[in-house]
C-alpha cells in the first residue's frame, strides 16, 4: 500500500515537473525576466507597496506555474495584457527558475 502510494506520488511529481519544464523549455530569458519583474511587478509588489511583496521565493514552482496558467484571473491582469508573450515567458523563467523549492532559490530579492 505504501509502495503504491509512493509510486503515485512520484508519478504526480513527474507530471508537475513536466508541465513546468515544458513552459521553461520555451526558453524564456531569466536574466531579462528579473529586469522585467522588477520594472513591471515590483512597482506594486514590494515592501510597503500597494500589493503583497513578491519575489521568486514567495512561491513554489508549482504555485508559480498555477499563477502563470491563470494570469487572466489576477487582479493585475490588465497590466499583464500590456506585456508581450516574450516578456511573459522571461518573467516566468525568472520566477519559476528561482522559486522557493527550485534548485537555485533566489538569494537577492
Amino acid at each position, binding site marked *: 500500500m505504501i509502495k503504491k502510494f509512493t509510486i503515485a506520488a512520484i508519478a504526480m511529481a513527474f507530471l508537475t515537473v513536466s508541465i513546468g519544464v515544458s513552459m521553461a523549455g520555451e526558453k524564456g530569458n531569466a536574466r531579462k525576466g528579473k529586469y522585467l519583474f522588477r520594472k513591471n511587478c515590483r512597482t506594486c509588489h514590494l515592501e510597503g507597496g500597494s500589493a503583497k511583496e513578491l519575489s521568486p521565493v514567495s512561491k513554489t514552482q508549482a504555485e508559480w506555474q498555477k499563477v502563470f496558467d491563470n494570469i487572466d484571473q489576477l487582479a493585475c491582469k490588465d497590466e499583464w495584457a500590456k506585456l508581450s508573450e516574450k516578456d511573459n515567458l522571461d518573467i516566468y523563467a525568472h520566477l519559476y*527558475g528561482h522559486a522557493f523549492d527550485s*534548485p537555485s532559490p533566489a538569494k537577492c530579492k
Partner: protein
Amino acid sequence: MSERINNLITRRKFLQLSGVLAATTAVTNPCRVLYALTKDSGEKSASQIREVFSACDMCFNKCGLIAQVENNVVKKLDPNPKSLKSRGMLCARGNAGVKQLYDPDRLKYPLLRKGARGDGKWQRLSWDQALDHAAEQLDKIGKEYTRCGFLFMAGTDMQSTFVHQFAEAYGSYNVISHESNCLLSRNRAFLDTYGVMPTPDVLNCKYVIMPGSNRFEALVTPDSMDLMTAKENKSKLVVLDPRFTKTATLADEWYPIKPGTDMAFFLAVAHVIIKEELYDKTFIKNKTFGFEELREHVKQYTPQWAAKETDIPAKDILRIAREIAAAAPSAMIYPGRRSSDYEDSTQIRRSYAIVNALLGNWDQKGGLLVPKKVKPGSMHIEAPFYEDNPDDRVDAGRAQMMFDEEGSFKHTRDAVIEGKPYPIKGWMTYKTNPMQTGANRNKTIKMINTLDFMMTVDIAMSDTAWMADLVLPAPSYLERQDPLSAFLASSTCSGVITRDPVVPALFESKPVFWIVKELAKRLDLGEFFNFTVDDFRKAQLKKIPEVAKALKEDGVYNITGPSFGIHKGKPFKTRSKKIEFFNTRYKDKGIDPMPVYKPPLVIPENHFRIVVGRNAYVTQSASTNNSLLWELAKENTLWLHPKSANTLGIKNGETVRVSSSAGNVTIKTRVTKETRPDTVYMDTGFGVLSKGLTNIFGKGACIAEILEDKADKISGNMAMHETFVRISKT
C-alpha cells in the same frame, strides 16, 4: 616611477618607524609607528582606554569582539562576552587581528602593474588615476565584449554585497564567490534533501559522527566550542578521517577511513538502521519521501561490503549504526563545511543527509535545526538590462545543477581560457585569493594571462593581487563601517552583527563600497549608488529597532530561546514538501536520485592521494603572513607516513619534490603516523609567489600548484581530493 614592491619607499619609512612593531610590544606599549600613522583623536590621556565593539574578520565566523583603543591605537582585541555565537571567546586568529591592522606588508596606495604580470614591478597611482583607469577598462571591455565580458569575484565579506550590486548595475551576471572552492556541494546535497541547509545543534547532541571535518582546528563558531562542551556532557564523538587531526585526538573513536569511501560507510549505516527498523516510523511516514525506494536501494550496502571499501571493520560499522540510532534524535552525522573533495561530493553529502533523516533529528534538540533569523530590510536597485548581453552565465551548463548566484570558479576559469561560449576579458576580485585556494594554480595564471585587465581590491599583496594589473588597497575590518550581517548559528545564538570603524583607516586604503561607488560615478551608473553605508544600514534596521539598540549597547543582537521544535507542521521546501530520500528532480536530470556508491580511483603504484585540510592558526591563505600567527606556523610540511617514507628512503625534515599532472613543488617532510600510508597532506597558504608577503615568501609549498582541478559533477564545486602525487628526493 616603477619600483619593486619590496623596496617601496613608504615601506622603508614604515619599517624605520616601526622598529617596535615587529615585536609584540605593540600590544602593550605605545609605539612610534602607531602615533606616526594615526590621526590624533584628541585623547590626551595615555591611560584612557576606549572599548569599541566589532566583529572579527580573521575568518568567516564574525565572532564578536571588543577592541581596546588608546589614542586611536588598537592595543588589544578581547572577546565580546555578549556574543553568544562565539560563546564569549576569541581564537588565536582573532587575537592576531591587531597584526592585520598594523601589518607593514599592507597595501598602502593604488598600484599599477609595470612589466610582465607577476614580475612585481609597480607604479604608484593616485586614487583618481586608478579609478579613471579602472573605469576606462570596464567601459572598454563592456563595449567590446558585452558587459558579461567582465567577471566579478568577491570573497566572504560584509561589503561583498556592494561588489555584487555593482556587477548588477554594470550589467554582468558573471559573478562568482569563493564558495565553489569550498562548500557548495554540501549546500547542494542538503538543499536537495531538506529544501534548506540546516544548522547542527552540536551543543545538545549526544552522538556525533564527524566525517572529514576537523572542528577543533578548522574552527566554526559555535560548533567548535559546543563540541567541547558536548563532550564534557558525555556526548560521543566518532571521527572518520585519513588524518589524525586534533579533532581525531579528542574523539572517542577515530577511524582512518580510506579517502573517498565515506558514502560507503553511510550507506551501510542506512542499511543497518533500515534493516533493523531502528528508525522512528511515524517520523519516516510523515516527514520523508521515497523511503521504500531507499529501503530497496541500501539492501546491497551491507557493513561487510562497506568494510572492504572503507577499511573500517564491519563489526564497528554495525555497532556505530546501532549506537547512533539508539541516541537519536539527539544524534547526527555532522554536515561539515568544506566539501570540495570528490567528483561525487554532492552525492557523498546526500548520504550524510539521508542518514540524518533516518535518525529523525530534524528540528530536534541535538539534531539539525533551522534557527530563527532576523530579516533586515534592504535597498533594492533597479539595475538596467543590457540587450546585447548573452543569455546566461559563462559557466552555465558545465555542471548538472550549479547554483545560479554562486557559479563555479573551476568552470568559469575553463570557460575564460577556452573563450567559450563567449570571451571574458576583465576580472575584478575582492578579498578572495583563488591563486591559493583554487586547485591548479598554473591554470589560474593561464586564465589571468588571457585577460585584458584584472583589478584586485585587498588588504595585502596576496598572490591574486600579485598577478593583477591594478591593485587597490582596502582597509582592514577594524577601520571601516560595514552593513549589518544576520547570521544563523546553532542553539540560541543566531543574531546580527555589524562593524563601525574602531580606528581611522591607515594609509590611502578605501573600502570597496567607496571604490565601486566611485567607479559607478565614472561609468554613469551613479544613480545606483546614491547612498552611503549608513543609509544602507538604516534601511536594514528600519523595522528592527530592537536590533539597533542591542548593537549599540552590546555590540551584537542575539536571538534568544530554543532553536528546535519551531518548525512543527511546516512543509519542507522540496518538491514533495518532505525530506527527500528519493529526489525526483535528480531523476529528471539523469542524476542518480539516491546516492549510488562508486569506488574512488585506485591510487597508482608509487603515488599518494593528497588531501586538503586546515590547522587552527591559519585561514587558508588569508592569515599565513600575519606576524603573530606566522610565529606559530612558519611554513607547511608534507605529512608522510613512516612506512611510505621508509619505502622511498626519505627522512623526516628532508626536502622532497611533490609532483602531479598540474605542477610540482618542493617541501620539507613531516614523517608521521598521523596520516594513512597512502595519503599525504600539506597546509594551504604557503609557497606564495608574492614578494609582498615578506614573512612567508620563500616558505613552504603551495598546494594549489599540485592539485588537479576536477569538479563535483552536480554542483561544480572544486574536487580537491582527486589528485595523485609522486614524491621524490630533490
